[in-house]
């Protein structure tokens, strides 16, 4: 065995490693030089034949060659891997990142969306949220809320009377008596619901629409409280300070009764389409609960009092959505209704 042989192997390796183009070839080379039957093993096996004086140098040379081969293979492997990734990257086709995506989802009736927002505000203010039937008795809908027998609202022209003597509730107030009895005499309750009026339909009138009504009952409640409360509620609803004004109104279930107008949040009171040019939006009929209503709910009006207010959902929806025809809200027109999605 001669040192020469080591140089031969090294030369051969240098040539072969130089020519490697793929990782698989590299493995072949590794086996060929470093494997159990490879050149290095082969050389090492001849160690015995090396003269004693050359053994040291021989050993050193073989070890050096082995290290060199190992390092070179590792180095080449990294380089080839790097190349392979580059090749992969270079051969990658770019996506058409501009393609449209499908975000299709179902939809909620816009009333549901607004109702959720409004109800959340009242919940934050500590209100109980209640519900009520749609078919009601004369007593609940009229008598218990102080609507006298001869009141025009009781005419068939305004009320859908039913064959069994009941009626479709004309106002959310129909639930007031039950709610005051359940929660009174100290309570804060809202009760959104669907109401019905025997009216002809047009773009601004529906016979079926949504309202929200609320009552606050306790001791020493004042008109000043009512104004404060309405301002706070409208501020939360429109997310800005809203100027309000109270005007005298007339409802049998409140005394005094008011119409609460909000300074138009869209034009700031200058007059626009939404407010019909007046600068004010009639939003909230309200008033101090009539003592007869409290009495009929078993609450002593000399000890307790409170206020009640209404909010027309459909009006809010029309304002918020620019919907031009109220009839859509009760329609099966999915072309319109499916546009609302689930948030607003």
């Amino acid at each position, binding site marked *: 065995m001669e040192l020469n042989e080591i140089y031969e192997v090294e030369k051969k390796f240098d040539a072969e490693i130089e020519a490697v183009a793929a990782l698989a070839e590299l493995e072949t080379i590794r086996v060929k030089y470093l494997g159990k039957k490879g050149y290095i093993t082969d050389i090492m096996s001849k160690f015995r034949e090396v003269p004693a004086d050359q053994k040291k140098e021989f050993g050193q040379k073989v070890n050096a060659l082995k290290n060199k081969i190992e390092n070179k293979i590792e180095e080449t492997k990294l380089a080839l891997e790097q190349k392979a990734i580059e090749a992969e990257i270079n051969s990658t086709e770019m996506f058409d990142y501009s393609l449209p995506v499908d975000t299709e*989802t179902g939809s909620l009736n816009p009333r549901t969306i607004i109702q959720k927002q409004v109800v959340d505000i009242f919940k934050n203010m*500590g209100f109980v949220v209640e519900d009520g039937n749609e078919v009601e008795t004369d007593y609940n809908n009229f008598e218990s809320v102080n609507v006298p027998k001869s009141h025009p609202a009781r005419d068939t022209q305004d009320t859908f009377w039913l064959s069994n003597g009941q009626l479709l509730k004309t106002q959310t107030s129909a639930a007031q008596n039950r709610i005051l009895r359940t929660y009174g005499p100290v309570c804060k309750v809202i009760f959104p619901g669907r109401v019905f009026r025997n009216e002809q339909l047009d773009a601004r009138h529906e016979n079926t629409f949504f309202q929200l009504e609320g009552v606050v009952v306790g001791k020493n409640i004042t008109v*000043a409280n009512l104004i404060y409360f309405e301002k706070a509620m409208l501020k939360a609803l429109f997310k800005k300070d809203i100027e309000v004004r109270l005007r005298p109104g007339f409802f049998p279930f409140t005394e005094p*009764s008011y119409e609460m107008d909000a300074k138009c949040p869209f034009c700031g009171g200058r007059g626009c389409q939404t407010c019909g040019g007046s600068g004010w939006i009639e939003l909230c009929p309200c008033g101090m609960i*009539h003592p007869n209503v409290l009495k009929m709910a078993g609450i002593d009006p000399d000890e307790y009092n409170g206020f009640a207010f209404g909010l027309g959902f459909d009006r809010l929806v029309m304002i918020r959505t620019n919907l031009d025809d109220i009839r859509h809200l009760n329609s099966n027109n999915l072309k319109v*209704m499916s546009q609302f999605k689930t948030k607003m």
Partner: protein
Amino acid sequence: MKISINWIKDYVDLSGIEIDELVKRFNLSTAEIEGVEVKGADVQNVVFGKVLKVENHPESNHLHILKVDVGDEVVQIVCGAPNVYEGMVTAVCKVGGQVCAGKIKATKLVGVDSCGMCCAEAELGIGSDDDGIMDIKEDVQIGADIKSVWPVDDVVLEIDNKSLTNRPDLWGHYGLAREFAVIFDRELKKMPLDDLKAYDKLPEIPIQIETENCFRYSSVSVDNITAKKSPREMAIRLNYAGMRDINLLADLTNYVMLDVGLPMHAFDNKIVDGINVIESDGEIQMTTLEGEEHRPPKGAVLISDKNKEPVAIAGVKGGLKSGISDDTNSVLFEAAVFDSTAIRKSARTIGLITDASQRYEKSLDPEMTPIALARILKLLKDIDSGVKVTSRLSDCYKKKYDKKTIEFDPKFIGKIVGEDISKEFIVKTLKALEFGVKEKGERLEVEVPTFRATKDVSIKEDLVEEVARLYGYDNIKPAPLAFDAAPQNLIKSIEYEYDTKLMLAEKYNANEIHSHIWNFEDFNKSHKIDTKSYVSLLDSSNAGQSGIRSELLPTLIRCLDENKNNYDSVRVFEIGRVVSGLDDENICDEHKKLAILFASQKKTEFELFTELKTAIVDIAKNLMGIDVELDKGDTVPYLHPVNSFRVKSRTADYGYMGVIHPEVKKATDKRFNVVGLEIDFDKLANTVAYARKIKSVSKYQAVEIDYNVVCDKTLIYSELQKKLSKFKSKIMLGYSLVDIYQNEQTLGDKKSVTLRFTLCSQDHTLSGEEIEKFRADFVEYITRNGLEIRG
């Protein structure tokens, strides 16, 4: 209702107050003003002119060439009015002036110079007559501006009638003037009236009231009326207030209605010389002043003459026969108050809602009748000095309102308003509103004026409103409510409603609809949907449907039907109410239901069915914590008899779901596969939820083994589960369904159900022996139970 500020100013001095301020304060204190119209602003430089010469236009067969004296000059005007004649005095808009239609310039009409325009009433906005130019009979100075003689300039406010519903006193200018007087702290002048006492010696008109629905009937008769036309000022006011001038007597009754607030009527005294107020028997026919035939309903109040011949529908409209005409010179004036409900009913039934009936509906004050008569006599005598009153005040006062007094502590007002309102302010305000106020120590005794006592004011809370509205709501400082930290009760069925809707919309791509509560009978019939309606509307003219629905799903099928041509997939839902029947006391049994409908032209019925089942199980389980499952049982006739099932939990039955009946499908649209669900939402939401608990997780590796269990094709999965339920193994965590394979050639009437078993131990890694033992046990169990394992 339209009100004229000139008219108001007859009764209260409003000088120094801008219109804007007037409107604002009235809005805040009394009623809503919906519009402000400045009258006369567009009438400029219109003078009285005299037509000197009328010549035919050479090129036109309807135009005339006029020479008109307009005071300072004679101008040539080309005019098309048919009524023009030489010597006529008319209104002339000079060049540079303006009428409602626009500015007047010198121009050529069919080749002839025209310098000005002769005007019709309508062109000046002061009347309704536009048949010809004004033929002015009054003694006027030629060349004078019409505005210097006639009250053309005025401001008209339009008040929202609805906001006057509870204020019968505000349906006339005098009552409104009282409000302005109080708002602006000015004096309310007295209304000029004739002295009725002067006629006490004259004969009485016989009046009888034979109905409960007439409070009071008062009358006076007058003879020798020669004037036919109303003075211009009165005519203009009537027009500005939204009425037309007709003839003196008709105008007078209208004027007094708008003045005092009480409708009046004038009968021809030659035809009507006595009054009987009766009720209709439902048969009597009447021809009204307009010549229309009406049959007043039974019980409607009628005015008849002494012979019980009806001459007017009380409070609504006069009759033709007894009506006044241009040559009437002797009349009987009616001033009466009828029951508000009775008048409303007869007006609505007949379909004649008039200025009079609108006012009577508001419960007018019977104390007004002599005032209205004294007022009309005063006006008539001022216009026509030769008239002769031929009867005394003839008055039948059948029903009187009780005098209303309210005693209260004035501090109550401040307590409710939340402001410190002084007793002095309260007393002053109430007195100005003509309430009688007596101080009784610290307390006040207040007497309600009759014109507010018919229904409006009766309790101390009503007085809070009177004082507060004049105190000014904008003067009230908002004050927060007392703090209350009590947590509020949440009602599950309400809380879950929104969450359910959101889940259906966002996870199941469904659209929420709100449908009417009607039972769409025709649709249901034509679509073979057999559903009941337990209660119907008495008047269905506006609803278009007569019954109330008992089920919600048919409405969704209707929704599909209306959208089937626009979509190949329709997914809709609704949470709504239905009437499921009547209870023993005939009260509706109402339920809040959830209905869902999935329809598709691409998906199979089974795919849709599975999606729908997923949705309801998902909602029940993941939202509400309730396990629901389907079970065999009767559903509804419009669902498939085989593939429709009950939706149940262990404790309750909520409703049903399934494929729609082939007949309904055929009637709707064969292209669509349709599945639907309807459940009682309240019942589901109120079911007690199970407690959600976390299972402990083993740290040792689990092993999964699949078995193909072969069983009869008809064996449903839940039955297979039952068969497997007795198999017990300590290391089995559970199993799940992977696949169901059916192939007639290889399996015949059997099917292969692939189940994946998960094996694991809490305390060690499973050994090969343990797994082998499980295999052996399971195979043995399967064969023992008449099943087999394949492959």
